[in-house]
């Protein structure tokens, strides 16, 4: 089976972001960018499927600026076979991403698409579910483990009260949660090898998509600051404050 993994270039998760003073967005100048952590987990899962002989080919696709090519190279160094860069400098909303990916799916005919459950920049948590809807496929979101049976996929999902298992027909969409696996670090020889792997450069229109926004970002603001409180000297003082001053006990 062929596995498609869409990946996004985002601000590195270790970066403390700053809201621009004019409230037009978050300052991305000279900020370290990396692959979205949930997408790394998705790439790892696809590569493991290939290593187990379940998948024959792993294709990664990224929609974004020219530099997203570096993100694709990272995935190729982890073990993906080839990449597709759908180049655009626009802000692309999840619905547009899903529509472009639908075009990629139609061109490549994968049997499984694994995505990160959400990107850590816009925290939308939408693309996988939207792609599933557009294709009419089943979805196993927030996956903690996946197991392929004949023609079906059992997905253990992380839900509010514990875990849930659903069986989806293939082809299907899976979105990766934190504990699906621990992504590998690419080795130096694999990083060198990845430089020779092919990356196709395309435009959104090549897959029947566009980047027309539905939402207007009016402004981006700082979250309300929480003031540090006081240090108490003892547990007795703490309980007294909580009971008598705050009334929460």
């Amino acid at each position: 089976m062929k596995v498609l993994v869409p990946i996004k270039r985002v601000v590195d998760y270790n970066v403390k972001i700053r809201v621009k003073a004019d409230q037009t967005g978050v300052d991305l100048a000279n900020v370290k960018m990396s692959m979205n952590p949930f997408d790394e987990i998705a790439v790892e899962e696809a590569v493991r499927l290939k290593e187990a002989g379940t998948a024959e080919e792993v294709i990664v696709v990224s929609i974004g600026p020219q530099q997203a090519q570096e993100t694709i190279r990272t995935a190729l160094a982890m073990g993906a076979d080839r990449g597709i860069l759908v180049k655009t400098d626009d802000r692309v909303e999840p619905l547009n991403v899903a529509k472009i990916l639908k075009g990629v799916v139609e061109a490549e005919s994968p049997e499984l698409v694994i995505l990160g459950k959400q990107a850590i920049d816009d925290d939308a948590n939408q693309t996988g579910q939207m792609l599933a809807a557009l294709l009419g496929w089943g979805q196993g979101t927030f996956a903690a483990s996946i197991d392929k049976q004949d023609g079906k996929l059992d997905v253990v999902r992380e839900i509010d009260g514990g875990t849930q298992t659903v069986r989806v027909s293939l082809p299907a969409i899976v979105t990766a949660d934190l504990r699906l696996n621990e992504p590998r670090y690419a080795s130096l020889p694999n990083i060198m090898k990845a430089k020779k792997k092919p990356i196709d450069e395309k435009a959104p229109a090549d897959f029947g998509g566009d980047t027309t926004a539905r939402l207007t970002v009016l402004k981006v603001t700082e979250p309300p600051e929480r003031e540090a409180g006081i240090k108490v000297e003892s547990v007795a003082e703490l309980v007294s404050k909580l009971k008598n001053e705050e009334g929460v006990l």
Partner: protein
Amino acid sequence: MATLLVAEHSNAALNDATAKALTAAAAIGGDVDVLVAGADCGAAADAASKLAGVAKVLVADDPIYAKQVAEPMAALIAGLAAGYDAILAPATTNGKNYMPRVAAMLDVAQISDIISVEGPDTFSRPIYAGNAIEHVQSGDAKKVITVRTASFAAAGEGGSAAIEATAVGDNPGVSEFVGEELTKSDRPDLTAAKIIISGGRGMQNGENFEMLDKIADKLGAAVGASRAAVDAGFVPNDYQVGQTGKIVAPELYIAVGISGAIQHLAGMKDSKVIVAINKDEEAPIFQVADYGLVADLFTAVPELDAELGKVGY
């Protein structure tokens, strides 16, 4: 203007998340109908009809909705969309699962995890793990929205809305529920609890969480954990409070042995009162705590247990 709110429930009972999301739905303006889709979910529908401000409760009672599997849920909701200007659901793992599917079926954007309603088409939502707030205006005729319930007070009771059966939608037949493993606990849900006591890596192992369990039982509190404690295998995944776990806003949050990574703060910094117990006085958790106690948790937690006893717990 009319709004459809999709209820979160367990068939037998309505989840508190529904009453909180109702407050967001009411803020948009116009009538709010509540959809209860489940199996033998009459009790949940009754509870929804009693919420103040509900115009009508629609009930889709069928085994295909028993576990809120996304594909039939989305088909049902999209089928009802014609009568509504906005469709909301709480941003629970269920709502997050089926709502984007609904949005794509309707060819509209989804606005995820709203924390305020600024107008009928304008909302704010956290981005970058809550380190920035995005204020967005929707250009779509129909709005599909998930609600961060910790940001809204629960609507009260006192309503008596009519309950109407609605036709069962298609089952696309591409998925089926196989089973579930739910953490058994007599304590309140993390997202509904008024008091939460959470442990971090400083707890050292799973057995030590029993100290927190004891206090939780005294206070009627829920027990949570940081990602570090979950990753270390001390407690199950669904204990996790944080950006990728549960977002909570209780009256009192007690963080024990938690350093306060940004990821964790994103999940609890809207709590009314935050207490931190940590032996490292430089721990970032103290920067958001109303009351900090620099102490070894293995002495402080038993002391807390004893002090609570003295004040009647």
